[in-house]
Each structure stands twice: as C-alpha cells, then as structure tokens.
C-alpha cells in the first residue's frame, strides 16, 4: 500500500536572543500544543548528581519570576489544559495542551520559567521526596523496574554520561543543593539552548507576535558547548545479570550499538525499520519464531534507544531486543535463536512485500503520533533542537518507506554476538 505523503505546514523563526521557534498550524480542532525543549538531559548531569536532570525538571514547576508555587499548574488547568514535563537522555521537555484561547497564557508561563525558576530549599526538599516516591513506584516497588532502560546502559557503556542511572540514587538526590540547581539552570537553561514549538489551532503571524511579546526579552544566553559522548563499539560480548526480588519470571535484554542517529541518519534509519521487522506483531520474524513456533518467550520487543524514541535520541545509542520468558525459560536458547533469525535475514534477505507491510505499519504509527497537537509540537521541537530540521516530520513516513531490503540485511548482519551487551533478570519472587 502506498505510504501517504503529508504536507503539514512547518514555520521556523529565530528570535534576536537566540530562541528558536517552530510553528505548525492545523485548525482541525480548537486546541493547541505548546512545547519547550531544552538541550540537556540525563547524559549531561554531573558525577555525584545522578538523577539531577530529572530532579531539576521537577523544580521548573515550582514557581518562577512572576508565579508562586502551584501557580503554573493552576493557570494551565484553570485554562482547561493539561501539562507535564519529561527528562530524556539528550533533552528535557515541558509542555501543555490547551484550548486555543489559552495560547498567550501558555507562552507567558513558559517564558516566565525560562527567565528563571524559583529555586528554594523548601521546594527542593519537597521535590526530592516526590521524586523518591516516583522512583519507588516505577522502579523499586514493582517487578522489572528499570528493565532494561536503567539496567542495560551500565553493561554496554563505560563512561559516566552513558552508563549511569538516570533516575538517580537516593544518596545523590538527597545531597543535591539549591546552588547545584542554580548552576544547572545557568549553564543549560539558556534560551540559545532551547526550542519553542506550537502546533494546532493558531495563526502564524499572530502567534509570532505573541511569542516575541513574551519571549523577546528573555536574556540572550548562548548554548553551552555540547560534549561528545561517544564511546568505542564493543569488541567482545558483555553479559551481566541481577536478581529482581519481585519478578516472577526470567527476562533478558540485548543491545548493539547503531550508527549515529543525527550524523549518519541514512545509515541509522535501516536499524529503526529492522527493529520492527523483527518484533512488530505476530507476523514479525522474532514473534513468529520465538513466541509462536519455539514458545521460548512470552513476549519480545525491539526498538532503538534506551527510551524507545528513535527520532529523539543522539549517539551513542543502541538497537535493543528484550524478551520475557516462561517459568524456567532458557535465556541462552533464546539469544541463540535470535542470532539465527538475524543471520537468516542477513543471508536470505527480506522480500519487498514483507518489508513493505512493515513500512506501512510504521507509517501508521508515525502519523498517529502526530494527530495530537502535542505529539506534533514535541516532535517538531526535538527535530529542530537536534537536527535543525522540523520539516522532517512530513518526510519520516516516506524515508522509512525508502529503506531497502539490502539495507535491512546489512543492518541485521551487524547485530552479531560479539558486539552484544545483555542483561538478564533472575526472578526472585516467591524465593
């Protein structure tokens, strides 16, 4: 089936203070998505301050120049909107979805905290407590917490930026200070390091006026130099395991380094497609083999990047495969079978028909992500931040569709056991 081409308008501007702005008008519903993305994430946090990028994200909601604590939440929700923020490996986003009549209010709120959050001891201690509960909910009090996104990087990588726990240790979180937060803001939350994106029910000219009104006087501060986080590829297999006292069943995840998502996009894209060829649905290679035929796993997932966002991550990153096994399952057998399937793809190739259907399904997923104004705003913001190319939002389905069978085979051929890092979950529940 032909992959439909979209032509959503995408307009780019840069304010005099260096803030980059991307607008994507779509008047099909009376709502807007507003996103501000800062080019700082987990990889940039200092040693001894694991979890700090995320903790700082929480502090950005605790009041700012003209806003008391709780005011941000109340002003967004009292305008009929929703908000959130999230911390990723390479960026941190802040966003709202609102009825379109609240556009100026949302711009005001984002500009106010871009000028400076209220960093106080009381708010810091409160949010350290909240973040600890977040970590308990998502990691410590549940089975498979942090698997594999927090557990596999330290096996695969050797340097602190890539290997450390991005949620943070309680010790590091508790020792964070207001001075740390001030320094982090001063260094990374510069308007030259940020992108503002608005998508949805907006007029481009009017919106630019509003953006200038609210962000125009944010002091110009340049982006800090971005360190090169690259590491050499693995030269031999790495494998570790850990006991999860809450997990009832075994699991294992493997990762292989892939080409740089930004610098080598053409070489990288086949891996994004390969992950789907291997794991998207019952007709994918690994589901058919491992789940339906061998019955050696109960589920398998494949994706690019430890947070599963192939178009929002920088290098170094990886292709991941993760498996949940039945009771007493044999992880080595599973890895061997996956190796066989990769070899088969590398040697026998993939038919245009099989690849075509995977690409059609990927187009649906990509388009579906951008139906929501917020999905569109976030994607164009990060595409601008990392690539200076927000219009890529229109091209991704087509570019995914242009990946060839030969590229898939070549990508599969590179996922060899010798370049693999794996982490195994030893189930401890009931023991």
């Amino acid at each position, binding site marked *: 089936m032909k992959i439909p081409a979209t032509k959503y308008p995408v307009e780019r501007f840069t304010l005099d203070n260096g803030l980059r702005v991307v607008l994507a008008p*779509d008047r099909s*519903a009376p709502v807007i998505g507003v996103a501000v993305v800062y080019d700082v994430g987990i990889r940039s946090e200092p040693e001894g301050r694991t979890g700090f990028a995320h903790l700082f994200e929480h502090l950005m909601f605790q009041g700012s120049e003209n806003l008391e604590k709780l005011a941000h939440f109340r002003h967004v929700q009292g305008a009929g909107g929703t908000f959130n923020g999230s911390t990723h490996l390479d960026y941190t986003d802040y966003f709202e979805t609102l009825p379109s009549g609240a556009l100026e209010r949302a711009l005001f709120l984002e500009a106010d905290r871009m000028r400076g959050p209220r960093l106080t001891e009381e708010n810091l201690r409160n949010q350290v407590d*909240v973040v600890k509960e977040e970590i308990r909910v998502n990691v410590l009090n549940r089975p498979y917490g942090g698997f594999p996104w927090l557990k596999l990087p330290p096996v695969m990588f050797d340097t602190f930026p890539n290997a450390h726990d991005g949620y943070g240790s309680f010790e590091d979180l508790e020792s964070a200070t207001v001075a740390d937060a001030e320094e982090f803001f001063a260094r990374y939350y510069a308007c030259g390091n940020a992108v503002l994106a608005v998508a949805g029910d907006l007029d481009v000219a009017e919106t630019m006026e509003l953006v200038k009104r609210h962000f125009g006087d944010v002091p110009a501060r340049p982006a800090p130099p971005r360190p090169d986080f690259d590491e050499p590829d693995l030269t031999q297999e790495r494998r570790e395991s850990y006991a999860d006292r809450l997990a009832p069943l075994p699991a294992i995840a493997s990762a292989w380094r892939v080409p740089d998502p930004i610098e080598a996009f053409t070489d990288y894209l086949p891996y994004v497609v390969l992950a789907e060829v291997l794991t998207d*649905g*019952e007709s994918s290679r690994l589901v058919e083999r491992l789940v339906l035929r061998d019955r050696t796993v109960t589920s398998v997932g494949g994706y690019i990047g430890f947070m599963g966002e192939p178009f929002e991550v920088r290098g170094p990153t990886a292709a991941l495969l993760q498996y949940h096994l039945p009771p007493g399952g044999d992880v080595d057998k599973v890895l061997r079978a996956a190796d066989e399937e990769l070899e088969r793809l590398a040697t026998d190739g993939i038919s245009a028909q099989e690849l075509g259907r995977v690409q059609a399904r990927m*187009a649906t997923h990509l388009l*579906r992500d951008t139906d929501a104004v917020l999905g569109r705003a976030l994607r164009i913001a990060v595409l601008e931040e990392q690539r200076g190319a927000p219009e890529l939002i229109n091209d991704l389905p087509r570019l995914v569709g242009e990946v060839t069978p030969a590229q898939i085979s070549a990508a599969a051929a590179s996922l060899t056991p010798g370049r693999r890092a794996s982490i195994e979950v030893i189930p401890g529940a009931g023991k």
Partner: protein
Amino acid sequence: MSETKRALPALLPAAPIALPSRSERRLTNGLTVIAIRRPAVPLVEVRLRIPFAKAHLARGALLSQTLFSGTEEMSTVDIAAELQAVGGGLSASVDPDRLLITGNSLAAGLPRILEILGSVLDGAAYPSDEVATERDRLVDSIQVAKSQPAHLAREALLRRLYGSHPYAVQTPEPEQVRAVRPAQLRALHAERVHPAGATLVLVGDFQPKRALDTAEAVLGAWNGGGKDVTLRPAPQPTPGPVLLVDRPGSVQSSLRMALPAVPRTHPDHAALQLANLVFGGYFSSRWVENIREDKGYTYGPHSLVEHAVAGSTVLVSAEVATEVTGPALLETWYELGRLASLPPGEEELEQARQYALGTLKLGMSTQAGLAGLATTYAGAGLRLDYLAAYSEHLATVTRDEVAAAAARYLAPARAVTVILGDAEKIEVPVAALAEVELE
C-alpha cells in the same frame, strides 16, 4: 527577580463545543455503525464493542487473546501480515461488560481491515496449537500482574466492593485459564460474538456516509442473533474496617478508596465530576496539593469517577511511602471530609469547571480520542451529542449543587478503604486511625 510584576494574559473566550460530522446506521443484522470524520491525518481508527456481560471469566480472557489466532483460510501470521499490509493492526480485550476490538490503519486500508475483522468475527477457528500458546502466555502475564502492587490493590478493592457481583473478580486465576479448551472458546464465540447490541465506531479521514457503506458491504452479512445479557446493578460501597492486605517488604503502601457515584445520565453527574476534581481529580486539587506538593508523601495521587454499565464509583488511589501510610490516610480523610462538610471556594470551583470543559475539547481533538469517547458512550446508550449537553451542564452547575454532591458522594464515612503494604510496619499506625481488618 524583576521589579515589575508581569500580568497573566487573559483567556480568549472559548467557542462552544463543535461536534465533528458523523453518520450512524443500524444494519439489518443488528450492528450499529457510527462513522465520524476527522481528516487531520490519513488514518482510520476502528472500535467494535460487543456486549459480553456474564461471559465465563477465563474463557472470555483467553478468547480475547485468540480471536485473531486463525480462521479456516488464514493463520495467525497471515492475519497479522494482511493487516500490516494496509498499515493496520487489530487486538481485543475484555472487561465484565464488553469485548472490545481495537485497531487502526492507513485511511485507504479501511475496506481491508474491515474484511479481515469480518472474517474473524464469522470464522475465528481457535486452532489447538495457537490456543495452547496463548493460554501459556496469558497465564504468565497473570503471574506478572500478581506481582504488581497496583494490580493486587485493585483486586482486593474490587472483592471488598462488589462481593458476589460479577465486578468483584475481573482477572481469572492461572489454573482457571489452564483449564480452558479450544472447543469452549468456539462455543463462547458462537454464543456471544454477534452483531445484536454491538457497535462499530469508525473515525478518520473519510466521508462518513461512504464509510458506513463500506462497513455495511463488508459486515452486513455477519450473522445475526446473539442474546441480550444484562448484569444486576452493582452494589454501592458498604463501609467497614480498613482492609489491610499484607505485602511483606513493600517500600510503599497502595492506598485505595471507593466511594459511591452516579452514571453519566444522572442529574448529579456534572456536580459530582466537579466535586471530584476539587477533591483529587486533577493536579490542582486539594488532595494532590496537600499530600504531594506540600508533604511529599506520594508521586501520582489521583481520584476519578469510574463508570461501568452496572454502576459507577469514585476511585481514590495513591502509592505512598511506607513510613507515612498513617499520615497519608489521615490527610485523605481530612480532604474528603472538608469538602463533604463545607462548600468549595468560588475560585477553585471555576478552575475545576474550566478544566472539565477544556479537557473535553482536548479529548475529542484526535481520532483515537473520538473513537474512545464514541465507543464508551455507545456502551452507555449515548452518542457524541452527549458532549454538548454535558458541557452545558458543567458550565451551569452551581456551587450549592457541587457542595451537595460532595456531601452525598465524597463523605469519608461512606468510603471502602483498602491498603496494600508491609503490614508489619503499617498496621499499628493505621489502627491508630481506624478499625483494621488484616487479610
């Protein structure tokens, strides 16, 4: 800090809710088809809701996992591949009210995704090998669910809340699943998977009348019949001692409360929604501002009105640090009691009202959102135009009505309370506040 305070920009007046263009048709076999236009992306969303009350729990669960496991002509893999070829996918799930089939595809794939859906509805074969595979997978996923605190807390709350009503147990036990045979799935399908009472919702980039024609051409021959099964009304919460469910070593306590509520069509519905928002139904609520933003006891507390066909309930949930379980319970009662006893402030009510009205618009701003709303409403005998009436009701409900709803539905004396956590650590602190029953 700057010297001059900047003023918060005013909101532009909100337009009244605008419903998308849509059409509906009842096919001769009894299937209701609703087609809703939203052409913002070249896709379609598909939902098929089939009434499933009183279906055997374990068989129903396994049926939903094997519905797409093959027909006379196609294998599991064939079905998945055919769907993928039009950028599509379909899956099924069950709850005590319905079987729900959910999917989407590229817009041009609508006829094909409906054809495949039709072939499964008419001819799902439940092949022995595939059923055996999915049976084991379902058992494993139930084992994993049983190691998750949120699941265990919900199970305990439902049991306490619903007693002998079918809503009391919504997840089968592994041994019940292991006992299910393919012939039983075929029998359940033959008995219950029928168009009478079912609703197909299509949302996407199409002309609604043409989408209806497509659905009629493809699914008009889906065999008629089926039987009408309704559940007795679910009981309202019966307060009792706090039920403590032991989870040794738990580093958090899962606090759950259930309170009475009314369905969407009840005159108190809008007032209760707003009362719930003011209490704990959104971030800027009293409860969240108290136990998260002031005290740091928890990360994501929330309260919502959950509607099922046979009854509605207010569900209050928070995962709190083990050492503050008692204080968190106390603050929860305090905030419920305060709202049940004293009317809300004008400003906080307006804020909740704007949130309720605004988020309705957000909810209908995507294909998937519209599909979910239309399907859920159809299950309650409502249509999308309910959104307009509900908006009007939210806009006009008075402070007195909200106060009355809070007194009637959110009084802590009416709550059923369950806490899952490390009993050794939390029993004494909780027993200082209320009578405790240890499970």
